[in-house]
C-alpha cells in the first residue's frame, strides 16, 4: 500500500517536471482565462499548445496518432499537479472524453484526423448530450439524425453545452433509430461547430460561467463523422462519463482554498480577538481538513483501481458525490468565516481573497447536479455498489 502521489523515481521526475513547468508558465491571466473563459483568450490557447508540445495531452496514445509515452498514472499525476496549481487541463473534453472514445472506437480516418490535433492542444470539443427533456434521463433525448446519402441531417436542440461557445467541434449525441430500444438508438458524432444550421445562444449561470443552448436546423454532418458504430453511442457515453467523474474529482484543488481561509483567520480580528483563537472557527476548519482528507482517500482509491487495471464503478461515483458536496460545505464554511465580506463580489472594495469564496459558493451549486446528480449517483451506488434491487 502506498498513498503517495508518485511511486517510482520516474513518476516523481515526471511530477517534478510538470510542477516546474507550471511554476514557470502559469500566469494569473492564464488561470483567469481557464477559470472564467475556459481558455478562450490568446494566452490560454498558447498555453495549451505548449502543453501539446510537451507531449502531455496525448500521454499513452500511440505515437502514430501524435501520442507520447505515458500511462494513466501519468495522466493522473498531470491532473493532480494542475489541480495543485489551481488550473484545469486545457481542452479537457477533447483530451479525456472525445479523444479516448475516438481512440477506442473511432475509424482509422477519424483517429488520424483528430487525435494528433488533440494531442497538440489545438482543438477542443463541446459536450453535446443534455437536452431540455433529457437531463438525468439522457436516454430521453429527442434530437434526430436522419441518414441521407453521404450524410446525416440533424435537427433539434441541446442545452447546457458548456464548451460550445469556444470549442471547435461538437461531441454530439443524437437519435439514429426511432424504433430500437432507447439505449440502442443513440449515436455519437463529431460535428464542426461552424456547420451551417447551427445556432449557439448563451445561458448565463449563477456561478458566472457561460453555458449554451445549441440549435440544429437540418445540419449536414458527413457520414465519416459518425463515431464508431451506429446506435452504440450510449455505451460510449457511459464509458467516458465514468472517466469524467474521476477527472472531476480533484481534491487537491480544495487544499489551497482551505489554506487561504486559514490565512484569512490569521489576519482577521472579530469581536476583539484573532479568529484563529475562536474555538468555533478552529472546529469548523478542522472539519474541513478532515473532509478534504476523506475526499482525497476516496479519489485515490478509485484511481488506484484504474492503475491496477480494475474498472472503478460506484467508486468513481462516490468520489464525485463526496467532493461535490464537500465543495459546497467548504464554500459555506468560508462564507461563515468571511462574514459580510464574504458576500462581496470580486470587483468590490473590501473584498477578501479576490471574491473566490463567494464565487465558489455560487459555482458549487451545480457540482451536485452536473455530471450525474447526487441522487442519481446514490441510486447507482445502491444498485451497482450494493446490489440492491432496481426500482
Amino acid at each position: 500500500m502506498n498513498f503517495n502521489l508518485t511511486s517510482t523515481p520516474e513518476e516523481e521526475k515526471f511530477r517534478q517536471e510538470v510542477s516546474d513547468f507550471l511554476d514557470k508558465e502559469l500566469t494569473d491571466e492564464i488561470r483567469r482565462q481557464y477559470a472564467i473563459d475556459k481558455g478562450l483568450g490568446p494566452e490560454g490557447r498558447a498555453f495549451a499548445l505548449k502543453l501539446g508540445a510537451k507531449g502531455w495531452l496525448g500521454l499513452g496514445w500511440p505515437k502514430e496518432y501524435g501520442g507520447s509515452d505515458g500511462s494513466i498514472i501519468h495522466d493522473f499525476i498531470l491532473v493532480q499537479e494542475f489541480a495543485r496549481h489551481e488550473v484545469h487541463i486545457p481542452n479537457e473534453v477533447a483530451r479525456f472524453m472525445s479523444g479516448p472514445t475516438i481512440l477506442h472506437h473511432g475509424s482509422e480516418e477519424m483517429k488520424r484526423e483528430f487525435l494528433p490535433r488533440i494531442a497538440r492542444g489545438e482543438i477542443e470539443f463541446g459536450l453535446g448530450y443534455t437536452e431540455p427533456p433529457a437531463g438525468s434521463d439522457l436516454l430521453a433525448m429527442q434530437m434526430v439524425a436522419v441518414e441521407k446519402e453521404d450524410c446525416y441531417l440533424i435537427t433539434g436542440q441541446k442545452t447546457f453545452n458548456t464548451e460550445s461557445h469556444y470549442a471547435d467541434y461538437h461531441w454530439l449525441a443524437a437519435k439514429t433509430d426511432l424504433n430500437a430500444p432507447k439505449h440502442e438508438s443513440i449515436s455519437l458524432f463529431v460535428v464542426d461547430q461552424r456547420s451551417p444550421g447551427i445556432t449557439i445562444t448563451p445561458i448565463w449561470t449563477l456561478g458566472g460561467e457561460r453555458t449554451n443552448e445549441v440549435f440544429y436546423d437540418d445540419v449536414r454532418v458527413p457520414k465519416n463523422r459518425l463515431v464508431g458504430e451506429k446506435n452504440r453511442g450510449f455505451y460510449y457515453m457511459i464509458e467516458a462519463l465514468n472517466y469524467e467523474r474521476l477527472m472531476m474529482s480533484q481534491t487537491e484543488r480544495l487544499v489551497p482554498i482551505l489554506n487561504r481561509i486559514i490565512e484569512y483567520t490569521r489576519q482577521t480580528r472579530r469581536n476583539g480577538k484573532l479568529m484563529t483563537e475562536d474555538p468555533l472557527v478552529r472546529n469548523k476548519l478542522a472539519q474541513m481538513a478532515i473532509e478534504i482528507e476523506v475526499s482525497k482517500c476516496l479519489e485515490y482509491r478509485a484511481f488506484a483501481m484504474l492503475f491496477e487495471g480494475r474498472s472503478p464503478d460506484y467508486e468513481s461515483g462516490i468520489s464525485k458525490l463526496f467532493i461535490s458536496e464537500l465543495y459546497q460545505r467548504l464554500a459555506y464554511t468560508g462564507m461563515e468565516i468571511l462574514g459580510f465580506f464574504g458576500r462581496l463580489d470580486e470587483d468590490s472594495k473590501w473584498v477578501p481573497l479576490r471574491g473566490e469564496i463567494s464565487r465558489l459558493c455560487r459555482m458549487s451549486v451545480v457540482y451536485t447536479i452536473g455530471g450525474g446528480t447526487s441522487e442519481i449517483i446514490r441510486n447507482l451506488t445502491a444498485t451497482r455498489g450494493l446490489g440492491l434491487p432496481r426500482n
Partner: protein
Amino acid sequence: MDIKFTEEQQLIRKSARQFLMDKCPSSLLREMVEGTKGYSDELWRQMAELGWMALIFPEEFGGTGGNFMELILLLEEMGRACLPGPFFSTVVLGGLTILEAGTKQQKQELLPKIAKGELIATLAITESESDYDPSSITVTAKAKGESFIVHGTKLFVPNAHVADYLLCVARTEKGKDPEDGITLFVIDGKAEGIKYTLLNTMAKDKQYEIFFNKVRVPKENVLGELNKGWGLLKKILQKAALAKCAEMVGGGQQVLDMAVSYAKKRVQFGKPIGSFQAIQHHCSNMLVDLDGCRWVTYKGAWMIDEDIPYEKEVSIAKAWCNDAFRRIVALGHQVIGGVGYCEDHDMPLYFRMGRMAEITFGDSDFHREIVAKQLFSAG
C-alpha cells in the same frame, strides 16, 4: 393557544401578495436589481398609497397603528417576491428606531414623512471588524460647541445612496465597558463630508461604505440617550432580525413552491420527478424546515406585540431561519436541477438573497451565543 390571523392580517397578506404578483414581475425585479437606484419610484409610490410605509406607526405620527405581526406578514410577502428597495431600511431600521427613541419633535418631523413614503432612511452600524459587537464601533462623534463631529467609516449600509437620513451608531465616549459611550445620531444624508462607495454584494442589494469625514451634526440630532445607544441598538437589532426572518419565510415559501411545481411537471424516466422518493423527501424536508421558520417567526412577532421578553426567542428564530433557509434553497436547487442554476430562472435571486439574509443582523453562531447567554444565566 390560537394560531389564527385576524381578518385585518389576512387582508394585508392577501392584498400584498396580489399587488406584488401584479406589479412586480420578474422583469421589473431584475431591472431594479441591475439599476443603480435599486428600486422603482413608481412601485414605491404605489406601496405608499397602499399604506405599507404607514402600517407600523401610530396614528399620531401619520401611521395606521398596525402591530408587529402585520409588519411581519407584509415583509413575508416582500421576501416571497424577493422585492428589493429601501422599505426595510426606511421602515424597520429607520422608522422603528425613531419611534422607539426619538424625541416628540423628531418623531413628528420624520415619521409622517416616512409613513407617506416621502422620506428614505437607513441605519449605519457595522464597521470593518463587524459582528454587531459594541467593541467594533470605532466611528467617533466628538462634541464641539452645539455640534458633534462624526468621523470614520461604516460598512454595509443598505440604500445609503438614496437615504434622506442616515441613522448612525457612533462612539461618543470610551468607557471600560464597550457597550457604554455609544450614541445614535440622525444625520442628513446630504451633509457635507459624507462619501458613499457602493459595495458589490452577491445580491446587488445596494450596500454602501460610508466615509464620514469630520461631518458636523447638530446636538439635537442625537437619537435617544447620549452614551446609552447600545441598549437601544440591541433592541432594534432584535426586531430587525425577526423582520429578516419574515423575509426568509416568504422566500422559503416561494422556493418550495417553485420546487414542488417543477417536480410535478418535470418528467424523467417516464414519470414526474415528484413521484421519486428522493425528490419527495427533499421537498418534505424543505417543508419541515419552512414550517419551523414560519412558526418561530410568528411566535417572535406575537411576543413582541404582547411585550413578552423576546430576546431569546428572536435569536432562536434568526438562527433557525438562517440555517433552514440555506437548506431550503440548497434542496430547491437540487430538485430543480440545471434549470435553476441559470440566471434567467428565479432560483439565483433567492440564493443570493439568502446569503445576505443569513448574515444580516447576526449569523447563526452570533444568535446561538445570545441563546447560550440566556440559557446559562437562567436557573
